[in-house]
């Protein structure tokens, strides 16, 4: 019944929307007509007026010195941060020692057995093969270091996230207060807040774990709250009528009912944490990320790939296993007794394998069993750069494209943005955000943009913004085209899936050097890397959105004799509009994250300042750039925030 009535209000909606949008714009124009002449009379410069900036370099420099001088004497450090730091170091060390004691055979067996219990034979084989591949690539010890770090970071994120989610799920008011905080945590590009964490905790594992927790906890919190809220009211009522106390109700009914969401939250948290593993290597996290980073220093793409592949394998295995765990809970939930025994067998088998391996003296990965993939990969990269960089007949080389892209697209967009008077930028932001969202999102967006001006980094921020806009445009064109193709052909989608998996989980650092080899140093390679990274998410969301379009609507169009192009244009695309908007939003957020890292390949602007701050320990430059990146991220997110996101993003 719902499907039959759905199209009617949808058709009526655009008219209402347009009406409302016109209202908003009119109101905004009125406000502008009053405020702009005022602002212009006071501060007539095109760029952000100097009177309205605050110079933070003095206080930030002093804060930096204070922390370094008092780190070994102030009680804040001795009795608070010191404990956190020590606790992290000790727990990572404990996990690492257990993994080393289990040896490669024990760890592989344990991984495979867990996968078998949770997700069946096929995934068990896959897990085993993945672990062996990590060893074969000569990355066993770094893989274990990363795994130890991940175990601690994920557990902490899950605990923090679950507590926040619990608070949000039980109290409406807390939930409302938490939402913007979680939203913001997720939008922040991780690169921006590495510096403050490093300053307090120093280079190394504790800083890396904490930066990861900030990034990975929000999905857990969000999904926990969602799960608690969506618990079946009838079951709750039944439990209540049995006279259960609040705590009993929570433990026996609400939490078990939310199990599916909790597992999905765990899945998301693991994926986010793994994507931080490499960025955290910039602050000395060690493990696989560090191998990628070190390989890049000697311009060795092959070696970087050898360390990147285990990250991809870990991500894919963990994703599939936790996803499978989430799907099959319905049948097996609730009877812990019946499922305990196989787990004990699995544990026993693991111990047995580990002991046998130890007795056989094969605890460490045998040094002869490695496969050198670095050399062939480097040969391929060399061939590519030798033959594609320039002088390809008719097409021109990639360097020429990059040059043209910089001169014809990036330069005009940047110059145009920097030429615009500052108040008109604010107006445009306000208009876009208000038309797409609510007055609240518009206000946040404008305030974020104004904060950038106040921080005194207006020009570099607009430079970064121009790169983001160019990259998003390219991503959307490619992403929508691919997404539409994938939605129309099952075979194409199946073929695409592993490619998307790899693009999404492969650490961004791995493709920074190939893009320089192809596009030269500058903003163009930064844009190229951003497109590669953001494309999978856009393709996925587009495909999913198009596929979920009401089949009844499509059926009726087909019966009216619409061609397949007409169906796409007139039915599928309009109905998938929320999904497409979400794709734009996700594209923007992901692009920004990589454009920043593009500071490492000549992207300049805010990304360079953030890297500079980290490299020189210069809190003033780094933190201001980081704050500007955060504001830019907030602004872009709010400007593109579809009202439907709240419900979508959680799932």
């Amino acid at each position, binding site marked *: 019944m719902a499907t039959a009535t759905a199209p009617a209000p949808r058709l009526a909606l655009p008219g209402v929307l347009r009406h409302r949008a016109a209202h908003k714009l009119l109101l905004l124009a009125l406000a502008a007509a009053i405020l702009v002449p005022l602002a212009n009379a006071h501060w007539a410069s095109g760029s952000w007026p100097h009177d309205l900036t605050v110079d933070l370099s003095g206080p930030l420099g002093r804060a930096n010195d204070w922390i370094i001088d008092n780190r070994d004497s102030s009680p804040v450090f001795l009795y608070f941060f010191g404990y956190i730091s020590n606790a992290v170091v000790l727990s990572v060390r404990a996990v690492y020692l257990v993994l080393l004691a289990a040896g490669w055979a024990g760890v592989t067996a344990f991984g495979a057995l867990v996968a078998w219990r949770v997700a069946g034979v096929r995934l068990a084989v896959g897990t085993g093969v993945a672990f062996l591949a990590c060893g074969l690539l000569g990355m066993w010890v770094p893989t274990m270091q990363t795994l130890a770090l991940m175990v601690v970071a994920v557990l902490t994120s899950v605990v923090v996230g679950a507590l926040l989610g619990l608070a949000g799920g039980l109290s409406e008011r807390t939930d409302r207060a938490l939402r913007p905080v979680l939203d913001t945590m997720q939008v922040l590009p991780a690169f921006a807040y590495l510096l403050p964490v490093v300053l307090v905790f120093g280079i190394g594992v504790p800083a890396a774990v904490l930066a990861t927790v900030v990034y990975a906890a929000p999905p857990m919190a969000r999904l926990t709250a969602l799960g608690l809220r969506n618990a079946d009211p009838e079951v709750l009522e039944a439990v209540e009528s049995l006279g259960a106390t609040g705590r009993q109700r929570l433990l026996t009914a609400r939490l078990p009912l939310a199990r599916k969401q909790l597992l999905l939250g765990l899945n998301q948290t693991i994926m986010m944490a793994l994507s931080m593993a490499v960025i955290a290597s910039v602050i*000395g996290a060690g493990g696989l990320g560090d191998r990628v980073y070190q390989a890049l220093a000697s311009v*060795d793409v092959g070696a970087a790939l050898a360390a990147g592949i285990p990250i991809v394998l870990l991500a894919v295995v963990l994703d599939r296993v936790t996803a499978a765990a989430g799907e099959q809970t319905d049948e097996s939930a609730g009877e812990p007794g019946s499922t305990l025994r196989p787990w004990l067998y699995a544990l026993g088998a693991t111990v047995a394998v580990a002991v046998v391996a130890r007795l056989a003296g094969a605890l460490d990965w045998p040094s002869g069993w490695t496969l050198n993939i670095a050399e062939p990969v480097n040969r391929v990269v060399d061939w590519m750069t030798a033959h594609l960089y320039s002088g390809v007949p008719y097409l021109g080389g990639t360097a020429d494209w990059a040059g043209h892209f910089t001169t014809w697209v990036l330069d005009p967009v940047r110059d145009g943005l920097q030429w615009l008077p500052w108040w008109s930028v604010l107006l445009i932001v306000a208009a876009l955000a208000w038309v797409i969202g609510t007055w609240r999102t518009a206000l946040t967006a404008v305030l974020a943009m104004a904060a950038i001006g106040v921080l005194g980094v207006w020009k570099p921020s607009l430079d970064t913004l121009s790169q983001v806009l160019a990259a998003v445009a390219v991503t959307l064109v490619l992403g929508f085209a691919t997404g539409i193709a994938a939605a129309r052909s099952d075979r194409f989608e199946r073929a695409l899936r592993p490619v998307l998996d790899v693009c999404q989980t492969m650490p961004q650092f791995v493709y920074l050097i190939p893009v320089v080899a192809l596009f030269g140093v500058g903003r163009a390679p930064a844009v190229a890397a951003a497109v590669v990274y953001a494309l999978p998410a856009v393709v996925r969301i587009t495909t999913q959105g198009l596929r979920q379009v009401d089949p009844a609507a499509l059926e009726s169009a087909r019966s009216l004799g619409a061609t397949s192009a007409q169906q796409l244009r007139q039915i599928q695309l309009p109905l998938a509009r929320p999904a497409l908007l979400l794709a734009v939003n996700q594209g923007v957020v992901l692009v920004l994250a990589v454009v920043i890292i593009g500071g490492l390949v*000549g992207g300049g602007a805010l990304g360079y300042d953030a890297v500079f701050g980290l490299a020189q320990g210069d809190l003033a430059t780094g933190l201001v750039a980081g704050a500007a990146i955060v504001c830019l991220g907030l602004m872009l997110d709010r400007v593109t925030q579809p009202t439907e996101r709240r419900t979508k993003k959680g799932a």
Partner: protein
Amino acid sequence: MRVRTAYSVAAVTSLALLSGCGAADMTKQASPFANAQGSKTVTLSVQSWVGAQANVAVAQYLLEHKLDYRVDTVQVDEVPAWDALSQGRVDAILEDWGHPDQEKRYVDDKKTITRAGGLGVTGHIGWYVPTYLVKQHPDIIDWKNLNKYSSMFRTAESGSKGQLMDGSPSYVTNDKALVTNLKLNYQVVFAGSEAAQITQMKQFAKEKKPFLTYWYAPQWLFKKVPMTEVKLPAYKEGCDADATKVACAYPHTPLEKYLNTDFAKKGGKAAAFLKKFKWTTEDQNEVSLMIADQKLSPADAAKKWVDSHPSTWKAWLS
């Protein structure tokens, strides 16, 4: 209520016990991956340039194969590396290009870092052009003639000016000030990392294109892409004191080694070895070239060098 208090008391005490009671010293924290399974571990910091990787590769090889240590390496930028060294997260920096602020703070005032002598290599930063370009325009090697050629160095990034390519943000550079103070029609373009800079230089060299770059010696790339230094106004002691007024060349810096003070005292054979570690520019370049150009793994490159230079390293172990 009472139960909850008991829990939290238990939690706090166990945390306190775990972290060694009382105050938690942030200045003494090794990497969690150090000294695992009863083996002795040395943690070395690697900087992003290949010369630093070469030092570490050889030190690591000798520590592992001759002294029976396990070696962890962590890649850290220069300034944060000093901080990490003072906290004991890493045990040694083998190649430092001179950081007077950090030396004063950690070596002289806090005494958490100890000098460990010279590396035997002298470093020098400068502006370089490829030698094939000098053959066509012999007068290009004086900064006074650079403006004449600026249009030749144009790229999409530098717009109407010539491009002066700079490297990683972690390196010491006065180039922006130099361009302004010497009134040069050039735009400093930051490659953002040494890897990006090397990749770009190799591409230029392959096509024999003109380029002007911030670069430094010792560096293995000189063997692949011969370059000539552009003369800047001569360096005098203190001419680079004010960062905005610099108008002179970069100094020649004897590279230094530094150890964490605790490690220097209690590090046993490893610390003694690292203090004695001292080699020549040629040695370093030989290893660097194997790592970065012939794509040998650092361990293989180190092994090759160690096998062919026994007299050099035997002195370090005695």
